């Protein structure tokens, strides 16, 4: 069965085609703010390069974030359009799970870090594992400040080692160094969430029956809309 995987949460646009859970083709580009323009044509090109018709696709996988709100909606709206019109299942995978899967190893904790802007970092912590494609976070998917990331790391990781990856690493470097933890960094090419890995995770979840409710599924925003927070702050101030 063919599966299309889309990842649009970060400035990297990544699209992959998998056959029976194995990556066959992948396209990655640094297309900040151009995901809306490039995503659909990229899917079309990948399909035609493999000689496939859209009807040959049996499932869609989409990165659910956290990440850029707009990027997430471009990806998920595209995934919903494909899944609904082709009448095929949709599987979502957290973008942090995708990053972690490329980094998780048996003898270290892993923390993918994504720049969430406004002084925050999206992060989740993963235990060591021999099966990175099955990894699930020990924590929730969080938006923290750098010093909070370091404090969490110190508490969870203890005397173990910690692997960090993602475009938010540079934001946490100083605070992580100050913890005296043994921190490993991945080479930069492993710092972007790749659709080929997303697709492999999704294929396993699909086999396990983890399919999304197409109508209700939404991105992992983690953070609420600024207007909601402002309204609440105002309400709390007056009561």
């Amino acid at each position, binding site marked *: 069965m063919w599966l299309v995987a889309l990842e649009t949460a970060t400035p990297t646009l990544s699209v992959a085609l998998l056959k029976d859970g194995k990556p066959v083709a992948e396209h990655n580009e640094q297309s900040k703010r151009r995901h*809306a323009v490039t995503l659909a044509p990229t899917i079309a090109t990948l399909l035609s390069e493999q000689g496939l018709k859209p009807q040959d696709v049996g499932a869609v996988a989409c990165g659910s974030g956290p990440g850029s709100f707009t990027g997430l909606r471009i990806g998920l709206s595209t995934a919903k359009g494909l899944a609904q019109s082709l009448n095929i299942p949709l599987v979502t995978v957290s973008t942090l799970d995708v990053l972690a899967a490329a980094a998780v190893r048996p003898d270290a904790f892993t923390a993918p870090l994504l720049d969430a802007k406004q002084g925050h970092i999206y992060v989740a912590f993963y235990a060591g594992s021999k099966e990175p494609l099955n990894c699930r976070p020990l924590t929730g998917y969080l938006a923290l400040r750098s010093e909070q990331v370091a404090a969490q790391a110190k508490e969870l990781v203890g005397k173990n080692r910690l692997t960090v990856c993602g475009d938010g690493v540079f934001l946490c470097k100083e605070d992580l160094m100050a913890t005296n933890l043994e921190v490993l960094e991945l080479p930069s090419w492993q710092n972007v969430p790749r659709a080929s890995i997303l697709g492999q995770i999704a294929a396993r979840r699909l086999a396990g029956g983890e399919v999304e409710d197409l109508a209700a599924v939404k991105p992992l925003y983690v953070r609420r809309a600024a207007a909601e927070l402002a309204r609440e702050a105002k309400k709390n101030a007056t009561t």
Partner: protein
Amino acid sequence: MHSGQIILGIETSCDETSAALVADGREILANVISSQVNLHAIYGGVVPELASRRHVELIVPAVETAFKEAGLTFDDLSAIAVTPGPGLVGALLVGLSYAKAVALAQSLPLIGVHHTAAHIYSNVLVHPDLKPPFLSLVVSGGHTSLIHVHGHGQYELLGRTVDDAAGEAFDKIARALGLGYPGGPAIERLARSGNPDALPLPQAVVKDNPLDFSFSGLKTAVLNYLNTLRQRKQEPNKADVAASLQRAVVIALVERTLEAADITGLKKIVLAGGVAANGELREALRTAGAKRGLQVLVPPPILCTDNAAMVGCAGYWYLRQGLTAPLSLNAIANLPLGAELTWGKLGEK
């Protein structure tokens, strides 16, 4: 079963998630409009991030309901038409990304319909024999435009607002009067019991182009009037304020439109947009048009709100002209009228 060309229309430019199925550009088989008005009312206006989030949750059910109502499936489609702008860019991107995915998956033509143009086509839905050329006045919370429609997809912008849109003036004064959101319908309701000559309000004249509109002076005059009363600790007669504001806006709209008809020699005038639901505007334009022997068409109120049927209707006529868009079509907040039709030719990859 339907033998004609079925277009799926998608519209998410503001706070309505809408999906429609239209046959041959004239018959509405389904027009599902999921309004988010309650979500935004507590904020006194549309919150773009919340609107975008809600569109993601409403788009699939809206399309599903449309197909169910029409008794059709994706296999029956001839094309997908969608609004790429103008509007809230995050909101537009939900409908556009969804529509592009459907076009890709079903190997169907994608058609981009400018939101203002879509409003004009709501008239074609109820008057199937309406053919260009004609003059159109499009009035909403975001736009006030006079457009010479030369042919399907061929537009000439004759005049537009140089500051606030007419609907925006209604919304702002409604807020100042504590009438809540949306303001237009509230002003109209209140105006019925008010005296339209109670407030002396200025008629805005735009120097550079006699067909342009300006409503900020009018808005400021009303706000100043309310302020003066407040300083004197007097309560305004809200009905009189609403009636005077509405009268001033309607006069400006009707006068410019008749002037545009004079200049262009066009005999057909087509009203469109959210404010086209305003009873006084409809009546005033009809009466003034009739006096001069002009034909005035107004869409039914349900087609004045943002809806996907008008998008699907325009999509049919665009498809007949070969006006399709590439899968690289992008959402643009302030998309100029007609730009969506040259997207491919602009070399956008």
